[in-house]
């Protein structure tokens, strides 16, 4: 349970921080005084004053307070005399000027304490009396500074003490545990009267492993091989096989890119070029490092100080520095760029919110402004170097320099210089100034020092979160004082300690976890577990998870046979006209204008470091899968990929094999058959406009012979790729107009097909913009009434209104343009608006329906989906496909 006091006080911090206007006094010594306090005053204090302080003030103003407000502590006499950020509370013996009494009286609206309610008048009178007596206070001890209080508390904070390995505790169910962590988890479950969920079946386990380790679904062949492997170590063999695959590095690189707030662009900058052209080389470096199982300590060191570690001429690791340099550019504000780097380093590697100390000492954690500006100095002493073929990298400046504290974070208001050094609390007794250049390498060494209590824990927790859907510590990038000790702290600590002991091997860590019985449980909770532990703190089952955006998109591409599995290389756009089919981790990330689909599926924000992704369920996700071109194309591809042999049963089985890597049940077969056999005559409405050529016949009543133009260029319908087309000549239709063909048999025609009955009017202008040639003739022909308008436009424009045409559904109104005598200089514009006239007696409120030719212009209708493609799409939208058991 959270302590509520910290929250109800938070709004009043500023009130206490107001300028103090009373007389200044020094801190009076108290121990000597204490002895001299008359007994009746001691009794008065104990009966009237101390209980009020304890009950109404300590929640925010004691060494025990979750958050110390206004820098004010009331724990002992010295602390009370000292006062808080706004100065002393009173001058002993002078109640009239006492800030304490003012606050308690509630006279000043900006200074009211305690904040929730004014205390009774009798209490106020007591305090007044007490101050008048000179505030006799028997409580001894030195006045503590809030920073000392925080440091003292921090010394006991669970995450700031080194992680220890754990002994295997005794358990009753001896057959279940396999690994050390199984014993730890099981002991806790048994203490709560719970039992582990049964092990998930082989099919589920295989699928879980494939997605967790490679981010891709297993194929039918892979699943079959695993199911058929009856050797005892089949599961272990699969784990090792997947850890060795290239796809492992791709999957886990993306997890790290969330930490590294990776993107291909700089965000908003003044200059035109917003791209980081070599960002992908950092991604490639991460993939490769993970696939080689580079020890995590080295992995971090390269990313912070590759410039210092690389031997002369060796450029192979320099791309690692993209970790620091690929952040947002903040319109090139250096302070913000450095702040971003401090943030990504400390939240990313140690789970510390050092950035909070930019403007004031950290409210909860032992992090001071001095710490922040010590780091600031490190980054300020590094300069950026742009090579032709690498992401931006940092190198030390020739003359590294310490930074001065920016008072209240304001660069214009500098305080004392702070030596470049490691965080003082974590450095032990004395944080020695860094000696080597900027100090970046020394910083990296401090972060990966095995005595660092945080680095391994934070990484282990992230890994756990990826494998279980939620970290053991809920705040994956804040292990500070506000983070509660995890229920399974011994598991976290044991894994962290062994991780370091075993050489910081990520693969070994992951291997250990996925081989555990905890990981292998099924994801359905027992009723008992639901009752006793609805949040599954005790890990008595695994969590069912929605595939994240990358795994989902990759899975759709993979099962439909479209996936381009090339490893590494440049980023590729996955939205737009020609979307890439590469794995989603290679998607071009434009941090300023991230396509909506990323957000819809809870992609990591590329703006700042992302501790953990959300898992939302919103209708926009459904709309994407139902309607987006990506999923429709995948469905079509799958249906083509799995063509069948004419037997629907076989084909349904093939679909299930491709998508789920399993056989369908009888019921599923029946449902599938029913679905693909259903007949439907409905087709998609592509709007009332058509684009073609033809001619007019009939002397009595003109009738149009209409042919669709066969070729669309992207903005023009015409006879073929060539212009003029060998057969259809110059005939073409564009959004705004077109060009008639070479003779009267090849007029350009825009056709409108009435979607419903009614009376329409036509408005428009026919324009022949050229100042040469004999112009064009435009005619409007109704399939019901024949010719209803004819105009000639030569080197000018003419009005082409038609009043009141009666139409029935399916009737055509054609806008026919011919070249008169010859096709030279005959480009024309003819935009028309057809408006339905309200039927008599209709509700005058309704707006008339209108069809504008320009708005209605479109290219060829995209091909519809066959029943089989629609079936494939449906299967790929199922919870079975998207949710991982």
């Amino acid at each position, binding site marked *: *349970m*959270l302590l*509520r006091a910290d*929250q*109800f006080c938070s*709004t009043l911090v*500023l009130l206490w921080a107001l300028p103090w206007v009373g007389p200044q006094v020094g801190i009076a010594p108290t121990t000597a005084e204490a002895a001299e306090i008359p007994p009746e005053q001691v009794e008065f204090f104990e009966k009237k004053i101390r209980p009020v302080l304890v009950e109404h003030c300590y929640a925010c103003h004691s060494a025990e307070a979750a958050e110390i407000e206004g820098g004010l502590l009331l724990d002992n006499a010295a602390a009370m005399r000292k006062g808080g950020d706004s100065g002393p509370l009173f001058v002993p013996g002078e109640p009239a000027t006492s800030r304490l009494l003012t606050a308690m009286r509630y006279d000043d*609206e900006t200074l009211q304490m305690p904040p929730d309610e004014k205390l009774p008048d009798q209490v106020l009178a007591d305090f007044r009396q007490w101050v008048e007596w000179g505030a006799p206070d028997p409580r001894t001890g030195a006045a503590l500074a809030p920073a000392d209080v925080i440091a003292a508390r921090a010394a006991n904070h669970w995450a700031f003490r080194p992680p220890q390995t754990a002994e295997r505790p005794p358990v009753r169910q001896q057959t279940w545990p396999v690994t050390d962590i199984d014993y730890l988890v099981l002991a806790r479950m048994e203490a709560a009267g719970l039992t582990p969920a049964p092990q998930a079946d082989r099919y589920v386990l295989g699928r879980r492993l494939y997605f967790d380790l490679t981010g891709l679904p297993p194929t039918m062949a892979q699943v079959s091989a695993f199911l058929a492997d009856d050797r005892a170590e089949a599961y272990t063999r699969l784990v090792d096989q997947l850890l060795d695959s290239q796809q492992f590095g791709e999957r886990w690189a993306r997890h790290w890119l969330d930490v590294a707030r990776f993107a291909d662009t700089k965000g908003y900058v003044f200059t035109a070029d917003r791209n980081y052209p070599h960002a992908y080389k950092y991604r490639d470096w991460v993939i490769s490092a993970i696939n080689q199982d580079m020890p995590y300590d080295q992995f971090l060191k390269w990313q912070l100080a590759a410039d210092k570690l690389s031997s002369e001429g060796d450029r192979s690791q320099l791309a690692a520095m993209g970790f620091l340099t690929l952040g947002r550019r903040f*319109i090139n504000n250096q302070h913000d760029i450095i702040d971003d780097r401090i943030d990504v380093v400390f939240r990313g590697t140690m789970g510390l919110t050092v950035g909070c100390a930019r403007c004031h000492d950290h409210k909860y954690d032992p992090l001071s402004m001095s710490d922040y500006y010590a780091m600031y100095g490190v980054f300020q002493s590094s300069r950026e170097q742009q090579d032709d073929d690498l992401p931006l990298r940092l190198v030390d400046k020739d003359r590294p320099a310490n930074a001065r504290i920016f008072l209240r974070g304001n660069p*214009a208001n500098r305080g004392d210089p702070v030596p470049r050094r490691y965080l003082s609390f974590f450095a032990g007794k004395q944080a020695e100034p860094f000696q080597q250049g900027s100090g970046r390498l020394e910083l990296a060494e401090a972060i990966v020092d095995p005595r660092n209590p945080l680095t391994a824990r934070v990484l282990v927790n992230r890994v756990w979160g990826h494998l279980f859907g939620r970290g053991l510590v809920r705040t994956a990038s804040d292990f500070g004082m506000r983070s509660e000790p995890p229920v399974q702290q011994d598991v976290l600590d044991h894994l962290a300690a062994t991780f370091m002991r075993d050489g910081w091997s990520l693969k070994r860590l992951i291997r250990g976890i996925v081989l555990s019985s905890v990981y292998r449980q099924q*994801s*359905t*909770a027992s*009723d008992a577990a639901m009752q006793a532990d609805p*949040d599954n703190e005790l890990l008595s089952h695994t969590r*069912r998870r*929605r595939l994240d955006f990358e795994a989902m998109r990759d899975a759709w591409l993979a099962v439909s046979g479209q996936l381009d599995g090339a490893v590494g290389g440049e980023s590729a756009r996955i939205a737009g006209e020609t979307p890439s089919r590469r794995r989603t981790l290679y998607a071009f990330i434009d941090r300023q*204008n991230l396509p909506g*689909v990323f*957000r819809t599926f809870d992609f990591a924000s590329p703006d700042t470091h992302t501790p953990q992704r959300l*898992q*939302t*369920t*919103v*209708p*926009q*996700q*459904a*709309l*994407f899968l*139902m*309607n*987006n071109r990506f999923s*429709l194309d995948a469905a079509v591809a799958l249906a083509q990929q799995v063509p069948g042999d004419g037997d629907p049963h076989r084909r349904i089985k093939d679909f299930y094999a491709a998508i789920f890597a399993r056989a369908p049940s009888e*019921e*599923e077969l029946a*449902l599938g058959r029913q*679905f693909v056999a259903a007949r*439907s005559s*409905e*087709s*998609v409405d*592509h709007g009332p406009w058509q684009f073609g050529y033809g001619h007019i016949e009939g002397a009595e009543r003109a009738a149009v012979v209409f042919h669709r133009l066969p070729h669309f260029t992207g903005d023009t319908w015409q006879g073929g790729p060539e212009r003029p087309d060998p057969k259809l000549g110059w005939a073409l239709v564009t959004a705004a107009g077109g060009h008639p063909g070479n003779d009267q048999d090849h007029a350009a025609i825009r056709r409108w097909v009435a979607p419903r009955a009614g009376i329409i009017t036509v408005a428009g202008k026919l324009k022949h913009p050229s100042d040469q040639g004999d112009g064009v003739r435009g005619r409007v022909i109704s399939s019901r009434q024949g010719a209803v308008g004819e105009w000639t436009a030569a080197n000018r424009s003419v009005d082409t209104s038609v009043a009141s045409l009666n139409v029935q559904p399916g009737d055509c109104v054609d806008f026919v343009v011919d070249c008169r005598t010859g096709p030279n200089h005959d480009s024309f514009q003819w935009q028309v608006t057809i408006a339905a006239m309200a039927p008599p007696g209709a509700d005058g*409120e*309704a*707006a008339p329906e209108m069809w504008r030719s320009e708005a209605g212009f479109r290219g060829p*209708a995209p*091909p*519809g*989906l066959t029943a089989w493609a*629609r*079936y494939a*799409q*449906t*299967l790929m*939208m*199922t*919870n*079975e496909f998207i*949710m991982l058991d």
Partner: protein
Amino acid sequence: MSAASAFASAPLSRRALLARSGMGLGALALGDLLGGPGQAAVGNPLLPKEPHFPVKAKHVIHLFMNGGPSQVDTFDPKPELQKRGGEELPDGNLKTERPTGALYPSPYKFQKFGESGIEVSEIFPHVAECVDELAIIRSMHADVPNHEPSLMLMNCGDARLIRPSVGSWLTYGLGTENQNLPAFVAMCPGGYPIQESQNWQAGFLPGIYQGTHVDTKHRQIEQLIENIKNDRIPRSQQRAQLDLLATLNQQHLEARQHDVQLEARIQSFELAYRMQAEASEAFDVAREPQHILDMYGPGTQARQILMARRLVERGVRYVQVWHGAGQPWDSHDDIEVNHRRLAKQCDQAIGALIKDLRQRGLLDETLILWGGEFGRTPVVEMPKKGSNQGKINGRDHNHWGFTVWMAGGGVRGGTVYGATDEFGFKAVEDRVHVHDLHATLMRLMGFDHERFTYRYAGRDFRLTDVHGKVIDALIA
């Protein structure tokens, strides 16, 4: 039993109900579609629910002037400020985000309007005509002078932690009257405000209560709502797809008890399907008659505010209308030109909205809230490298005092509540914290904010945390 507690236990009782009725979720969803009230009464977390108190207000339109409109230039006239331009404040300036200087009078004139005689700035002439409908709170205050935490506070009741937004709370508590449209719509032309979708997040509430973002820069429905149309599968065939999907998902669910995620995902497809049909019509302002279009005027603001009316008319619970992407009202410089321009973009449409809702009999049941995340200083912002281009003609953020107003929805019109100091810097009289505004808004919507809770991680959470008092004087 409160609506809140009724739902808090819903997942289990609902499953029990389903088991008893022998009916699957797929069937349920179809029931909803066919509008069968008996079937629809089971299982849908967005069905209308009764709040604690009987009230008229059913919908909210929150006109969010993001960036922070200046109170002394809009709804809080300060004669003393006008007189003493250029003078330093005797006690020094309150701390805001950036350095500030001397008193900077409003460049605009104020004039009394309506029977109430409340003064409104010349930049809001159409809103001024409706002043007798407004309850203007001139004594708002927040916690810090920064956009991000103040946006979070105004929208979610907490500056830092991940908490549900007001719209999410209300759709959770009240459900929605139209199952075919999103219950909670966040409209923002040109993209996102800062803090982006966190402004309409569901937090720890189920994801279904999160706001649906609509970029009202666009006109075509397929651009307003991504993926809303399918040009390759006719509707009846898509229905058949979703029926098969529901059946397969139901079989999948039956083997896996206790999973609200699976159920939520099943429902999301049904909501998506219904959205396709109804959204096209609801968002199409071109269907309005000319005199209504003329009433709202030209431009994006008019279009989206008219859209908001169409949505509440169709039963949408909460519509948040953001002025624009980023923080348009953040006039650190050139405030005279910028505030005039911004007000002109929305004034006519806001006035029209009030009158239009009134003439349709919808004003009583629709609560309009106008305001930003904070206000602006009555003192001028001093130049600072990179922040205001060295001009000395704008105002800094001000959380010490600012103005919001409400109208309709059970609000006492023609009211001014609270006051800032003589210069308009700081709320001094009848101060209203953002938590108090939330408490009052909840009361207008029928909730006792202290009893309207959601149990999460072992604790009962509420929008106002442990704060908030209802301002009775604002309620009719």
